[in-house]
């Protein structure tokens, strides 16, 4: 999986989470349901956090694309010095994925500290994998 595929996967995951929570919340609101997802503070804050991550990703890609079009590399160089255009968005999207993984473990397993280690492992691996993909693309690998 290249960096482009990984970033696309995380972005779709965030959009999916926002969509399903919004759908459930709006369904309850439209039908005056007795039980609503908006009564659950965890999911309400998850939805607003993810929307913030997506908005921030949009802002960073716009800024990065503008800088990229105005940039240049010295003849003979194989890549850019800072690699900024390869790093854009990864932090925000992984932050969004972290929030999703945390709420999954809280809702399914409760706040038990014993299960929190699995969430930590998954999040740490996402971070590790993401930044290894950035390095692979930065040094000239398949994007």
């Amino acid at each position: 999986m290249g960096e482009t595929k990984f970033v696309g996967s995380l972005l779709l995951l965030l959009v999916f989470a926002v969509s399903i929570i919004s759908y459930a919340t709006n369904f309850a609101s439209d039908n005056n349901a007795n039980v609503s997802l908006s009564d659950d503070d965890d999911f309400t804050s998850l939805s607003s956090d993810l929307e913030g991550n997506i908005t921030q990703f949009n802002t960073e890609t716009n800024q990065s694309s503008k800088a990229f079009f105005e940039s240049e590399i010295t003849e003979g160089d194989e890549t850019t010095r800072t690699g900024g255009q390869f790093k854009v968005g990864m932090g925000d999207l992984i932050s969004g994925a972290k929030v999703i993984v945390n709420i999954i473990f809280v809702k399914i397993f409760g706040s038990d500290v014993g299960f929190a280690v699995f969430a930590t492992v998954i999040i740490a691996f996402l971070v590790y994998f993401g930044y290894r993909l950035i390095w692979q693309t930065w040094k000239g690998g398949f994007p």
Partner: protein
Amino acid sequence: MSNHYLYDLPNISAGADKALVGTVTAVPSFTGWFLFFVFGVIFLGGMVEQKRRTGIVDLPLWGIIASLATVVMMLPMTIIQGLIQIEVVGIVIAVSLVFAVWFFLSRSRGEV
């Protein structure tokens, strides 16, 4: 001879939805198990049928299809008071997010 029942019998004359609420009141985990049944039928049935027809199984795909179908079955239950608990709603949404994570991170090059 009097009949002794373990649970209060549902009152059908009050309507089918009241009978269902009475059943859930007597057995609170009924809704959760019903939704698990819906999930299991779609997940296992789809998986087995795909294996039979194509020889390969796309587990994350069937997981997300089954979990979305469970969400669709679950949402109308939230309209009637006493039919489903907020905890079950949260778990159903959380399970759909689990399979979404697995699905989106398991796609290979060229797949959706």
